[in-house]
């Protein structure tokens, strides 16, 4: 009779469930990391950390802005020990809310360029990344378009419907914050409105934008510099190329991925051990070789053929001024970019 069959099936399912249960109920003390960086970028090095030190790490992944907001909401209760962000502004927002623990000088001094460290010593940069315009040269030729001199030029009519962007992505959010700081709220708001009016194509993240440019769905997209190299590593034939906006344009913002320790963490020592590990030569070499970012310690060089960090004509800006995350998020939402 069929009910018997179902009973057997449910029993089987239950057995599998029970077999899985021990894996779920593990009470060992672990370091909890909230990561605003994609798992594919930071996951392997965190796994390596666990392997090298024997310290178990639990990682919550999400968008940097989302994770920062989550920590702000959780407040004192946050299970997070370490926050890894892909934007100095999000770290700044937590610093401004007085939630971060000051880092020791020995940790901070690993990073030579003071621009990539919190002035109050509350967070430290782990790797550097530049905002760029990724483009498909053939498609651009076909369409008779020339590369723009500034991110602000992308609102021109000839770019209608042709620009990919990721309005919820933290690096993009930071870029808009930089616009607010350098050009004022009004100009930033106008740029967003003009981009939307110009039918900018929204993507959930940077990777799909690069994929779309490679596929020829769109000729150009606003992304971080390193995503393209992941595709090039799979397929060197790809012709998509990076364009750095010249002349200190706000579109060439250099930002950091960084880390901070939560004041509320009761595992400060382990947390610091992780941050130091991420600044070690081996971890920095990992960022250079695997995520194609700029290492921030002098002893390690970028792994791919990138313009030197110092040669990028980036805008003059203090990363810790990018801390009005909430303000920018609201501006982006009110602009209708998320609709």
């Amino acid at each position: 009779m069929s009910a018997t069959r179902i009973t057997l099936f449910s029993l089987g399912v239950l057995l599998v469930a029970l077999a899985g249960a021990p894996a779920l109920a593990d009470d060992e003390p672990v370091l909890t990391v909230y990561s605003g960086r994609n798992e594919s970028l930071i996951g392997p090095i965190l796994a390596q950390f666990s392997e090298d030190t024997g310290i178990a790490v639990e990682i919550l992944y999400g968008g940097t802005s989302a994770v920062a907001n989550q920590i702000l909401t959780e407040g004192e209760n946050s299970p997070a020990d370490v926050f890894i962000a892909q934007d100095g502004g999000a770290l700044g927002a937590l610093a401004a809310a007085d939630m971060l623990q000051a880092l020791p000088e020995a940790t901070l001094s690993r990073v030579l360029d003071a621009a990539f460290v919190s002035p109050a010593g509350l967070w430290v940069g782990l790797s550097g990344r530049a905002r760029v315009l990724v483009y498909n040269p053939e498609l651009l030729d076909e369409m008779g378009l020339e590369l723009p001199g500034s991110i602000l030029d992308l609102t021109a009519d000839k770019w209608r419907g042709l620009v990919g962007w990721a309005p919820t992505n933290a690096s993009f959010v930071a870029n808009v914050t930089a616009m607010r700081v350098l050009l004022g709220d009004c100009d930033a708001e106008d740029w967003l409105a003009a981009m939307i009016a110009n039918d900018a194509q929204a993507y959930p993240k940077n990777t799909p934008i690069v994929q779309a440019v490679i596929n020829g769905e769109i000729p150009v997209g606003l992304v971080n510099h390193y995503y393209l190299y992941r595709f090039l590593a799979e397929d060197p034939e790809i012709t998509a190329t990076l364009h750095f906006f010249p002349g200190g344009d706000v579109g060439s913002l250099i930002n950091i991925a960084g880390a901070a320790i939560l004041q509320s963490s009761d595992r400060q020592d382990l947390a610091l051990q992780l941050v130091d590990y991420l600044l070690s030569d081996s971890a920095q070499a990992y960022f250079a070789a695997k995520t194609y970012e700029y290492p921030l310690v002098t002893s390690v060089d970028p792994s791919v053929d990138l313009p030197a960090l110092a040669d990028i004509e980036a805008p003059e800006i203090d990363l810790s001024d990018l801390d009005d995350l909430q303000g920018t998020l609201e501006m982006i939402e009110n602009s209708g970019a998320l609709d």
Partner: protein
Amino acid sequence: MQLSGIIPPRFRSDRRQGRLPARWHVGNRQLLQAISLAVVACVMIPVAYLVIGAVGAGQDGVDYLLRTRTILIVSNSLALMLATTFLATLIAIPFAWLTGRCDLPARQVFLALGLAAMVIPSYLTAVTFSEAFGPKGLLQSLLEPLGVDRLPNIKGFVGATLTLTFVTFPYVVLPARAALLQADRALEEAGHSLGLNRWQVFRQITLPQLRPALSAGMLMTALYCLSDFGAVAVMRFNAFTRAIFIQTESFRMDKASVLGLVLIALTMLLLLLQSRLHSNGRHYRIGTGASRELQTVQLGRLKLPGVLFCAAVIFMGVAVPLLVLFKWLAGHMITSPIHVPLDTLAQNTVGVSAASALVVSAAALPLALLAARASSRFDRWLVKLAYAGNVLPGIVIALALVFFASQHMLSLYQTLPLLILGYAIRFLPYSIGATESALEQINPRFEESARSLGLTARESLLRITVPLARAGILAGLALVFLNVMKELPITLILRPIGFRTFATRIWSAYDEAFLSSIALPGLALILVSASVLFVILRQEKTAP
């Protein structure tokens, strides 16, 4: 083959209206009421919390609600719902008729393959449709020789509607088919004898008899559209669920709560409308004599178009997703550097689904008993409230629970019990429904006899009622299992840190554009779901 059991009974048109006279013969009634009350209290947590959150937002919440952008979201959701329901019905009626009543070759095979679309979660269909029909997708590469350089972007309304149409049409096929098979042959014969042609008979006689079944199926489809998160998120269509997700992800709870309440109100309005519109006309036999075997419609020259139509529907609903997944499996595109063993995913997915199914079935039993055997107003209200999951989209439950736990129940925050609670609230109606309809088929005289022969109320419950209702309870169990396994928003938001299932793995791979990494968990999820569905269908078929 009786397939209508897949549809939760609240949506079935053939639900029995009458109640049996009230004499309590099963179990300790007060105890059942107490347990039921506790279950209903859990079910009400999300609603209560949304109200608190929305009220807490105060004037800001009102302003947010009245923005043009919020109104745009409402109209987006409604447009998606109407278009999808219309298209799904348009596909489902001929599909049900062709596979149910016509001399279509291998029609059972066509039917089974068409219904298989139900086991493919909306987010997988959406992801594969974007690949297949995108500007530079598979379709474009087929059309390339014809000089088609790029196709228009389907992201947005078109993509979301297309996806949901092919995900939901089986929900209309099932009741439509059941009604077609029960239709009265005498009426059709009368039509023919009065000189109507085949089309006129279908339109004027067969179709009106389908109306109650169709309205049930269309309601299912409409509710599915309002609550679906995966398809609208992938297709970037700014419907309610996507807007709520964006707010929830950023932990902006006041705005998310306002949107959530509006969505609930919209869903309830829909249910109310449906029950009002529900035709009271007679659709049953009134003639004397037995209902006769239905006549198979001879398609004649229309056979080939009929076959092509069914094949096309199956191609879209089932073949395209599978083809794209296999293409990704074979392709060498960038894959995620994070390797998650498939057996870990399978273990987590099956484990949490099984645990949830057991919890839900246990919680549903007292409520189903009250529903089937009780008559007091209090009992009926408890049961009504327990069905709240039908109007609470997953994303809304998730947002309320994450808000609730992070503020007030830290010990539950990011734990499996909270995740299972979320599933339980969402899918409790499925289990109550299945159990209730099984209980209603048990003649209360059995229980009375047991009592008169000296069994206590508790004994009569455990020895008579539950064993007799076993098939229904197990069907509910399987139905919950099936739905939990492919659930996305509750899983994404409430899962413990580091807990991965097929659904979350597919989502994160999609999110980072590691399309190849979608293939294996996607195919595995479809395989497991299809096996469970197969078991349910076999059970339906052999049930007495």
